[in-house]
């Protein structure tokens, strides 16, 4: 990946629309796709999420860029507090509403986007034109559609790389097709899952499994459906608000039934036989879902925890092998 330029705007959540930033003439970047996001294992205090800590360190180091935190979890929310305390001025906290069944949630999302727009102007962005915004939305919709079409057939690692590329610069890089093999179909569900962790996909394949559904925060789940424009009747900003707010599928939402509604048809159509629940140490939101996932889908769930170090620990590789062996034995 190419290095970030000055005034890149790094996003800590895929639910903050990159199109809005692009329309302001700035470069949106998924923070998890940055080469130097996970440079070294940060020493963590008890209970601190490694992802949130990496975001804090990144924001404190990259004073030439802006970092947009989100309120999707307590750890990022308070990570923003730490960043501001230590003097980073180009940081912004986007209030993602947890509720979604009321008009108020949409209003919060809309006003937060407007506030983000003010922030982007303040750091050197340009006022977005409706046409410019529409073009960005059309372009990203097209790319997401192509990525979604390749999701189930692409190689798991290639697909993870393609989504990461999309979150980095909006480009489409087609994932190579998955090699046909008699492997146990698995779903990978959970929080951010990025380059240093992709080795897990190789481990899964080596053990005889294959991720046919990457439902991590940086996988297929992060790809919104195409924006809908009502025959020129609505301003693209309205379409952006609804297209994002109405389609967030995440564990932090209350109730989080959307996540389950999203997973259900995909798990069934791809004949998933087991779920690997991927979460960072200290992530209560994902960890608490393990039992509900088991109960709802009747599938075995393996919890894998991303700690400070990159890659897969021998212990986790061992657990993964046992999990897949168990599924194989069940036939």
């Amino acid at each position, binding site marked *: 990946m190419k290095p970030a330029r000055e005034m890149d705007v790094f996003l800590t959540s895929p639910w903050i629309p990159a199109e809005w930033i692009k329309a302001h003439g700035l470069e949106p970047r998924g923070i998890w796709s940055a080469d130097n996001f996970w440079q070294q294992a940060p020493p963590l205090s008890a*209970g601190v999420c490694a992802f949130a800590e990496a975001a804090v360190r990144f924001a404190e180091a990259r004073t030439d860029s802006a970092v947009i935190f989100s309120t999707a979890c307590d750890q990022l929310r308070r990570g923003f507090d730490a960043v501001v305390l230590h003097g980073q001025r180009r940081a912004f906290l986007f209030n993602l509403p*947890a509720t979604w069944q009321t008009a108020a949630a949409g209003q*919060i999302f809309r006003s937060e986007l407007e506030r983000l727009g003010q922030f982007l102007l303040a750091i050197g962005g340009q006022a977005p034109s409706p046409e410019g915004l529409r073009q960005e939305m059309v372009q990203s919709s097209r790319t997401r559609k192509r990525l979604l079409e390749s999701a189930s057939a692409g190689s798991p690692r290639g697909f993870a790389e393609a989504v990461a590329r999309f979150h980095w610069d909006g480009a489409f890089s087609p994932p190579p097709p998955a090699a046909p093999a008699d492997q146990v179909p698995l779903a990978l569900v959970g929080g951010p899952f990025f380059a240093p962790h992709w080795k897990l996909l190789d481990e899964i394949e080596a053990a005889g499994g294959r991720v046919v559904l990457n439902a991590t925060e940086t996988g297929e789940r992060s790809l919104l459906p195409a924006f809908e424009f009502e025959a020129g009747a609505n301003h693209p900003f309205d379409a952006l608000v609804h297209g994002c707010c109405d389609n967030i599928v995440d564990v932090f939402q209350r109730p989080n039934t959307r996540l389950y509604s999203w997973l259900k048809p995909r798990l069934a159509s791809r004949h998933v036989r087991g779920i690997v629940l991927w979460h960072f140490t200290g992530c209560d939101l994902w960890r608490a879902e393990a*039992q509900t996932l088991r109960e709802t889908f009747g599938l075995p769930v393996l919890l894998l925890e991303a700690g400070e170090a990159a890659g897969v620990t021998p212990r986790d590789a061992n657990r993964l092998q046992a999990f897949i062996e168990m599924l194989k034995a069940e036939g």
Partner: protein
Amino acid sequence: MPRKLSLSAWDGRYEQLRRDGLSEPGYGGPLRRHVVREKDFRLEQLQFDNSPAALRLWNFLLTENARLHQARANGHKIVGTMKDLGTVPVMAYALPGVRAFYPDGAWWTPCLMECSDKLLQQAEAMGIDASFCPVRAMLPAFENGEHFPRPDLLVCSTGAVCDDFSAIAQRLEHLGHSILWWEMPRRRPPASDEAACALPGNLAAPKIQVDRVRTELQRVGKALGKLAGKTLDDDGLAAGIRAANQVRRLLDSLRQTVYSAPAAPLPALEMLVAEMLAIHFCSDREETIAVLEDLLAEVQSRVRQNQFVIGTDAVRIFWVNPVADLRAMNLLEELGGRICGSDYMFTHALDLIPENLPPLEALARTALADPMVGPTADRAARIVRECQAGHVEAVVISRIPGASHCAREGEIIREIVRHKIGIPAIELEIPPICDALLPNLGSRLQALVETARARRTK
């Protein structure tokens, strides 16, 4: 003379008080019965204030579940309100025949019952293990119905709240307990060109956030009104706010009197329990007022007579976050400290609710003043102000095991305290039963007390 008593000593003290004509409310009785009947074994390890007012306080606290069951039997509607710590109960108690309580309060049950209830183990079997805050005890408590009654309505604030609580509440809903979720945005400072509202606690928020919270509370109010069979109107809500403010004024007087006295006229443990009454009136608003009036009269009398439970030499401590094990409050005093300021995560439930605003607007502003929904720096700023006003010599930040907010906030608060007022501050984690950690906790607290004392001579 005021002093602290063990539970055994209280047995005799109670008999003496009865012989002397002690008059008690319906929930009164010897403290010992809570061990015998409710298995509140932790009481045997605690030290209590020896006043009848403290006895009443403890009996009031420890009979809450029984009083709730009785209220249900009497036809009252029960509302379980979660996480907002102080706002929704003001609305609920403004309606006739409605009682609101915090199932969150079950987090003290493992402590009180010394884990004999097995709630934490049951929570683990339900998918919520020890990596979560002890509030996970509420999950099996809901399922087994052996503690509080199952509420007729469950309300939970979400958004800028602790992840662990939110995750546990979501698990509860998956288990079939329907929840009315209402959005609490993360409070932010208003921009320079933005309409702003003053909030209690010297805070401010953009008007747009206050409007959103008011809209959400309106939705909650409708659900409460439907449950009660009566619309929650402005007049009723204004009366509810006035009654809540009566509680808050009493608590303010109590805190002022105790924290500013030359020595502590009431122990830290009873002060913690008294402050907790603010959030939902321990399921009986009128009785809360009576309990607090008794306590206030007791401490005022003690101060007039120069009678204290802790020596004048005690180091003045500000305590941040509630403790999972009540024993920790005794421990601090045993090691030479006294509480002279506190932030038990609900300072917004101590501040007066504005009475000069439309009631729902006033409540929305109060809800937004919650120290846990805003920037940690705001919380730290209040702590600093209160430390300065109370001539505090050291700060203790107690971590709640597994609580998501504790991962980072303590470090931020310590940094700000150190930078602004330069007094020593420590962070320590207190589990539901801290016995095994007493040597470690004790030495850390002792080091803090000694450091603060050493600074006096400089």
